[in-house]
């Protein structure tokens, strides 16, 4: 019964909601609204369950003096300070977020907001460092991705058009140097001339490519965002949607039972 009853509830609810979507008339229309009301109420209680689970987990860490138990203790203290301060402000001013509330003025605006903003701001440093270390043009696909990312990054900011030609020129110059120095060491004359020719071509291309990016970096960034990026995104979305439908059907029909564990 422990398995059959939840599977039956899932099946009936799922089928009724699918019917309600396609036939939004009575009795299905109001039934969907009723189901959604229940869902909203259950979501509210899920928050309480989440708080209970979080506190219990950290209290266990503190009571067992597990590794980094002090962080768990600070979480529990912060939780109750927030809760008590919120209640106190709510009772004193009528609502915990009213304009006079010290909870809103001090705790939220001067403690919570700067803390969360600081955590997120640190990402800028990590991203810069990670981009420098990890973005390597070691394959053609990686080089293409890197080049596109660079153009989008420059094309979305005000100075992009002015700076992009120099960046692209530098890349071509390095490419020419590498090809030339490789070509000089080549024993096979055909490969040598091909590489040196490639180096010369790179040097010749610096000016026209630089001119193009001087005028069209923003447009190129827009094109990348609107055509190749969008095509890939759409493919991913369609894949996710099909996967979602397949998984929903499996759950409704009782084939997928992992949620019962």
């Amino acid at each position, binding site marked *: 019964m422990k398995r059959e009853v939840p599977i039956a509830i899932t099946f009936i609810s799922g089928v009724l909601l699918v019917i309600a979507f396609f036939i939004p008339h009575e009795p299905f229309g109001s039934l*969907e*609204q009723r*189901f*959604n*009301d229940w*869902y*909203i109420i*259950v*979501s*509210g209680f*899920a*928050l309480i369950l989440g708080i209970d689970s979080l506190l219990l987990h950290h209290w266990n860490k503190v009571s067992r003096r597990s590794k980094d138990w002090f962080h768990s203790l600070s979480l529990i203290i912060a939780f109750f300070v927030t809760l008590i301060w919120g209640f106190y402000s709510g009772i004193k001013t*009528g*609502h915990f*977020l009213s304009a006079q509330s010290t909870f*809103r003025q001090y705790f*939220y*605006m001067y403690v919570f*907001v700067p*803390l*969360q*903003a600081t*955590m*997120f701001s640190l990402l*800028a*440093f990590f*991203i*810069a*460092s990670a*981009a*420098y*270390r990890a*973005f*390597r*043009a*070691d394959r053609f696909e990686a080089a293409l991705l*890197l080049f596109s990312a*660079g153009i989008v*990054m*420059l094309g*979305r*900011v*005000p*100075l*992009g058009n002015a*700076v992009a030609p120099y*960046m692209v020129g*530098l*890349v071509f110059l*390095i490419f020419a140097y*590498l090809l030339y120095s*490789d070509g000089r060491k080549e024993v096979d004359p055909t490969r040598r001339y091909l590489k040196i020719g490639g180096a010369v071509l790179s040097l010749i291309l610096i000016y026209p490519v630089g001119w193009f990016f001087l005028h069209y970096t*923003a447009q190129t960034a*827009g094109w990348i*965002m*609107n055509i190749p*990026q*969008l095509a890939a*995104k759409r493919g991913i*979305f369609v894949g996710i949607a099909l996967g979602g439908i397949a998984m929903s059907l499996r759950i409704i029909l009782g084939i997928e039972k992992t949620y019962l564990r």
Partner: protein
Amino acid sequence: MKYIEKLAKIDRRIIYLILFLTVLLPYLFKISLPMKPLPEVVQAYREIDRLPAGSVVMISIDYDAASMPEVQPMLYAILRHCFSKDLKIIMLGHWPLGIPLGIAALEDVAKEYGKKYGEDYVFLGYRPGVAAVMINMGKEIRSVFREDYWGTPLDSLPMMRNVHTYDDIAILVGFEAGSTGDYWVQYAQARYNQKIILGGTAVVAPDWYPYLQSRQIVGLIGGLRGAADYENLVHHKALAYYGMTPQAAVHILIVIFIILGNIGYLALRRRK
């Protein structure tokens, strides 16, 4: 060659220091750069601009303090635009931790334009259950929000008397830092044909270009650039506009670092 190889091994503390100075200096010297607004932002601006006075705009706060530097300036700019055109605002949110940010912006801008609570704007607050909230609001807003955030019954607020479903809302503007924008499109737009504008962080905005092309949303404000463009369009240059110079400098710096890293990497690989 050794010097070139060293380019692949710049100490991360040097990178952090250069980055810090790159952000700080443009702010200290208040350097600003000219920008041409992006078409998707202009589209969003025009959609709001062409609404007749008295139309209702619903704004959803689906972000919190972590995304505040990018998204909050958009909220201020849109609120200024709406209030300057005498549009009515209904605000709600699906991220409970972002609710006070919405309240703060709404109160600030309403005060700036001398707008009255209940007549010109209303704050509904938060209800759990994202998708269920969106679907039920399409049938009757009161089925989800019987009262506003401060406990006043909706029917006692003059502005809300004739507002019941999405049919009574001219445009919905979702400010996003996650996937709630997708839910707005899936439920409010696809089921109820609600006009939607989405604004959000530069990380989530690229996900919405398919919606923009298929006209499931009528405008897109992405990242600090989008916010700066909107500030520019409403002729009220503020945080986002002045934040674009540091952002431009950092973008250029990161591209330089990537090029330097690759030069060093190629030099090392050739030697090996």
